[in-house]
């Protein structure tokens, strides 16, 4: 849990608990991120993507998943955390409507509740939820729709 509700005084009505969303918490390279679990399709072992010529460096290629072609993204590069991909331990497949992408991540912590309240300031793009303290870590909450929009604008920006 991220933001504990302030303790109520004796005789006072209990304060409404801050709303929170179950999120998958993971590390890209050095930074920790959270994505609402409802947007996560699967977490799997990494498979070698097939590179697609003419795409930006943060697009590692495509993989086949359940009969579909899915782009593989180096999240740390897309979010400006790193200029190269680090260790890849898992692929996190996320979906927003008809858009689907697999994100390379270094470590998965698990599902944690992350506050829906605005978090601390962060300069990470697509981080509508801000930064939160989760399980002793500073975690930036990402929204998948904004993440997909960021991919679209980054790809078109190169064209």
């Amino acid at each position, binding site marked *: 849990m991220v933001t504990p509700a302030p303790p109520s005084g004796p005789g006072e009505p209990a304060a409404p608990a801050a709303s929170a969303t179950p999120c998958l918490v993971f590390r890209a390279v050095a930074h920790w991120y959270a994505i609402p679990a409802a947007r996560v399709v699967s977490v799997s072992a990494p498979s070698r993507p097939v*590179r*697609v010529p*003419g*795409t930006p460096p943060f697009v590692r290629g495509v993989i086949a998943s359940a009969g*579909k*072609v899915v782009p593989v993204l180096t999240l740390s590069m897309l979010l400006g955390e790193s200029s190269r991909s680090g260790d890849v331990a898992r692929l996190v497949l996320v979906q927003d409507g008809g858009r689907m992408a697999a994100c390379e991540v270094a470590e998965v912590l698990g599902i944690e509740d992350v506050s829906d309240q605005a978090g601390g300031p962060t300069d990470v793009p697509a981080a509508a939820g801000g930064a939160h303290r989760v399980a002793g870590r500073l975690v930036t909450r990402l929204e998948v729709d904004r993440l997909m929009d960021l991919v679209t604008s980054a*790809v078109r920006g190169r064209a």
Partner: protein
Amino acid sequence: MLASAGADLFAFESRQLGAVLGWPLVVILPWGSLHALAGIPVEEWEPRALLARSAGSGEPFVLRVPGPLREEDVAAGEIHPVPPLLSAPAWVRGIVLRDGATAVLLDLPALGDAVLSSAISSPSPAPEALR
């Protein structure tokens, strides 16, 4: 027609292919390199030349690819569109998914347009092969 470039596999539709020639070329034609296209910084091994015509002008051109090539039938259902999220170039026609192997299907005529406009020309502008 399937060609391997490094660890990647590329597919070309035979109907778009005029001929497969040896390398070096014995005629002077505009040409591009599959390895340059795929960002592989070494020369193609056992190179072959795929002769085709560009989509725009119909001008002949050559794509140098590593050999050996192999020809396989691909069912239409095995060809998937490139995810729109990637906004791939026009010469990337689709992705072939079959039996766990994935190949990038290239559009040779559209590639020809890019080769003729030098958008993906070989890093060697004056190849020794063009004699």
